[in-house]
C-alpha cells in the first residue's frame, strides 16, 4: 500500500498543474512572461535525491510514466515530456552520487533540472514548429520566470517531503 504513495502524489501534481495558472494573479498571466509549472519534475528531483538508492531507478521510471501522462493530457504531442523528464532525472540521478543531500544541493539540482528540462522541451517544440520564439526572447520571458517560480515551489515542498521520502526509502528499498 505504501508503495502507492509516490505515484499518487505525482498524479496529484499532474492534475493540479492544470489549475496552477488560476492561482497566479491575472496580471501576471496576461503579461508577456511565460511561467510554466514543472511541479512533477520538482517532485521527481526529490524522489531521485532522497528516495532512490544508487542502483534503483524508480525516479526515472516515474519520470517517463508521468511525463507521458502530461503529454497526453495537456499537450497532445506525445513523447516530449516523457523523454525530457526521464532524461533529466537520469542526469540528476547521476549527479547526486557526487554530492551530499542537503538543501543547497537540492536547490542546485532542482535548478539544473528545470533549466535542462525546459531547454530540451523548447528545442523539441522549436524543431517540430509548435513555437517560433527566438532564443533570446525565450531566455528572458520564459526561462527566468519559470526557474524563479519553480524554485520557490521547491523550497515550499522541501520540509514536507525530505524526511518522509527518506523514511519510505528505508522501509521499501532496503529489504528488496
Amino acid at each position: 500500500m505504501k508503495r502507492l504513495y509516490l505515484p499518487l502524489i505525482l498524479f496529484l501534481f499532474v492534475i493540479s498543474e492544470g489549475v496552477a495558472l488560476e492561482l497566479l494573479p491575472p496580471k501576471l498571466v496576461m503579461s508577456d512572461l511565460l511561467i510554466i509549472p514543472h511541479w512533477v519534475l520538482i517532485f521527481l528531483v526529490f524522489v531521485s535525491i532522497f528516495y532512490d538508492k544508487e542502483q534503483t531507478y524508480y525516479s526515472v521510471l516515474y519520470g517517463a510514466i508521468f511525463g507521458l501522462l502530461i503529454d497526453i493530457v495537456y499537450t497532445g504531442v506525445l513523447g516530449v515530456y516523457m523523454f525530457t523528464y526521464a532524461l533529466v532525472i537520469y542526469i540528476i540521478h547521476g549527479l547526486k552520487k557526487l554530492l551530499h543531500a542537503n538543501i543547497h544541493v537540492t536547490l542546485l539540482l532542482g535548478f539544473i533540472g528545470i533549466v535542462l528540462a525546459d531547454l530540451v522541451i523548447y528545442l523539441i517544440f522549436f524543431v517540430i514548429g509548435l513555437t517560433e520564439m527566438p532564443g533570446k526572447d525565450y531566455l528572458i520571458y520564459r526561462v527566468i520566470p519559470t526557474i524563479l517560480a519553480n524554485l520557490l515551489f521547491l523550497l515550499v515542498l522541501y520540509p514536507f517531503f525530505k524526511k518522509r521520502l527518506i523514511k519510505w526509502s528505508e522501509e521499501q528499498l532496503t529489504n528488496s
Partner: protein
Amino acid sequence: MQFFRKKRLFIILIGFIILVALIGFSLGDRKNLSTPEQFIKDTVGWAQSVIHTPVKFAANIFTNIDDLKNTYDENKLLKEKLSQYKGLIYEVQEIKEENEQLRKTLEKTESIRDFNPIQAAVMSRTPERWVEQLTINKGEQDGVKTDMAVITADGMVGKIQTTSEFTSTVQLLTGFDQFNRISATISRKDGKDIFGMIEEFDEETNSLLFKIIEESDKDLKKGELVVSSGMGGVFPAGLLIGTVKEVVPDQYGLTRTALIKPAADMYEINNVIIVDRTLNEAKTDEQEDTE
C-alpha cells in the same frame, strides 16, 4: 564497465527513437485520439473536476475582493446601459418574429445562423503555454464533435480540437495557426459586406490576422466588429470574433490585412458554450458534390 556504458548509450538511443516515433504519430494526420488516450483523458478529467472546485474557490476569494471595490461604479454604469437595452430587446424580438414569418413564407426554415448550444465548464488549462488548450467537462456523450466552435458570452474563444467520451479539448484562438482558418465578415449596409479569412494569431501584435479578399476594403474603420460568416461550413454565421484594431498592407502590398483584437478574454474563461450548428454538414457535403 564497458558493457554498462554501451547499455546506457543503447537505452538513450532507443528512447530517442521512441520519442521521434511518438511525435510523428501525434503530429500526423489523425482525426481523433486513440482509445487509451481518451481513457486517460477522461480519468484525469474526472479527478480534475474534483480538485477544481476548491482551488477555484480559493483563487476566487482574492479576485472577489478586487471586484467589490469596483462594484459601485460599475453598477451605476450598468444601470444606465440597461435602460438603453430594454428598448433594444423589444426591437430585436419584433425583428426576429418578422424574420421567422418571412422565412416561413419562403419555406426556408433552416439557416446557417441557427445552432444548438451545449453548456460546459472549463476544468483545466494547459500549463505548457505554447499549447493554448483548455479542457472542458463535456464530451462525445453530450454531442460534442471535433471542429465545433466554442464561444463565451463575449465572443468566440476557439474550437474543439479533440474529443473523448466525457471531456474534450478546446484549441484557443490565440493558438490558431494556418491550419485553422475561420471564414469571417464585416457587416455593412447595402450588401457591401467585407469578406475574408482569419488566418492565424500573431503573437507580436497580440491579434488575429484577418486577410481581406474583397476589393471593398478602403474605408475599414477602427473598432468595427468582425463576425464569422458561416461560409466555412463548420461554424454558424454571426459569432462575434473581435474588433478591428489596425489595417496594414501584407508583405506584397496586394491585399490588406486587418489586425483583430479578440472580443473574448482568453485568460479568464470559466464557462463556455459549444456551438453545434443545426444545418448539418451532410447537406453541405452533398452540395459540394453536385457543384
